[in-house]
């Protein structure tokens, strides 16, 4: 597939300034090779098939402009994922101009019943309801059924909560960058992240670790 020995592989940002090199790699083949992956990725982040399709299309069009060749399918894939991530961020930026990204309603009191409500130990975990021991969490990562549970649990988070969680944990953007992108305050972001983690943790415990999923 690599037709240009001089081209550097991977890490290349989709620099718009890059000279187009038509014919180096067949863009329609990109769609067959990477379309599914990019679409699934976009679905997880945007949760809307139309928006995900648009993001994928924009990604390929930007890639065509960038016009690079890669010495391998996986290098090409990472390059395309990089472009897609930018497109997803653009989408969040646009969305944040239309509606508020802050969601402080979600899970605001859900976890209360797990803490002692009154008395000297107020605010302590009620022991039976506190975090359970998760056995072999590392092994779960190799289990297909774990990922199904993970997707289900992540899918239960409201869109904006899932968006900030992924920007922070997957993309590793810092708080300030996320707040700038989504036009929200840092303290609101921290509350949202706290609730996202609480909800996701609890869901995985209920539907995977608590059910002995890790032993399957």
């Amino acid at each position, binding site marked *: 597939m690599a037709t240009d020995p001089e081209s550097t592989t991977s890490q290349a940002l989709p620099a718009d300034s890059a000279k187009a090199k038509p014919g180096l790699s067949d863009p329609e083949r990109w769609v*067959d090779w990477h379309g599914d992956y990019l679409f*699934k990725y976009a679905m997880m982040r945007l949760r809307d098939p139309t928006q995900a399709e648009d993001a994928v*299309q924009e990604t390929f069009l930007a890639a065509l402009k960038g016009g690079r060749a890669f010495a391998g399918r996986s290098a090409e894939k990472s390059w395309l994922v990089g472009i897609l991530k930018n497109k997803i961020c653009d989408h969040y930026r646009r969305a944040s101009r239309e509606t508020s990204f802050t969601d402080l309603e979600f899970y605001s009191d859900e976890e209360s019943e797990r803490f002692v409500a009154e008395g000297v130990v107020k605010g302590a975990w009620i022991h039976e309801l*506190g975090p359970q021991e998760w056995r072999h969490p590392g092994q779960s990562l190799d289990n297909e059924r774990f990922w199904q549970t*993970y997707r289900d649990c992540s899918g239960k988070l409201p869109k904006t909560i899932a968006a900030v969680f992924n920007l922070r944990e997957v993309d590793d953007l810092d708080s300030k960058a996320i707040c700038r992108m989504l036009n929200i305050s*840092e303290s609101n972001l921290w509350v949202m992240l*706290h609730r996202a983690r609480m909800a*996701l943790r609890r869901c995985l415990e209920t539907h995977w670790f608590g059910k002995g999923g890790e032993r399957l």
Partner: protein
Amino acid sequence: MSWFRSLAGALSILSPTCRQATRLQSEARDRSLSFFEKLGLRLHLFLCKWCRRYGEQLKFLRSAAREWEQDESRQAPQGLPPEARERIKEKLKSSRE
């Protein structure tokens, strides 16, 4: 009595409840905690196995979230719909011409 109130305030930072400790453990992943917040959290974690677990599990969430994007098989089963695939190909073709 104001010294009493500030002492009470300091003590409450130094001995957070589990509820506060879960929030602090989450926030510690997103901002730097103050000296007293850190100290209070450390003391709490030293004594509380539930909150220690909670912290470990937050770490796991991050590694799961990161692992997720590495491998196709971990993603949702449905791929790019065929109509969209054709449409995008057409679009690419026409924008190349």
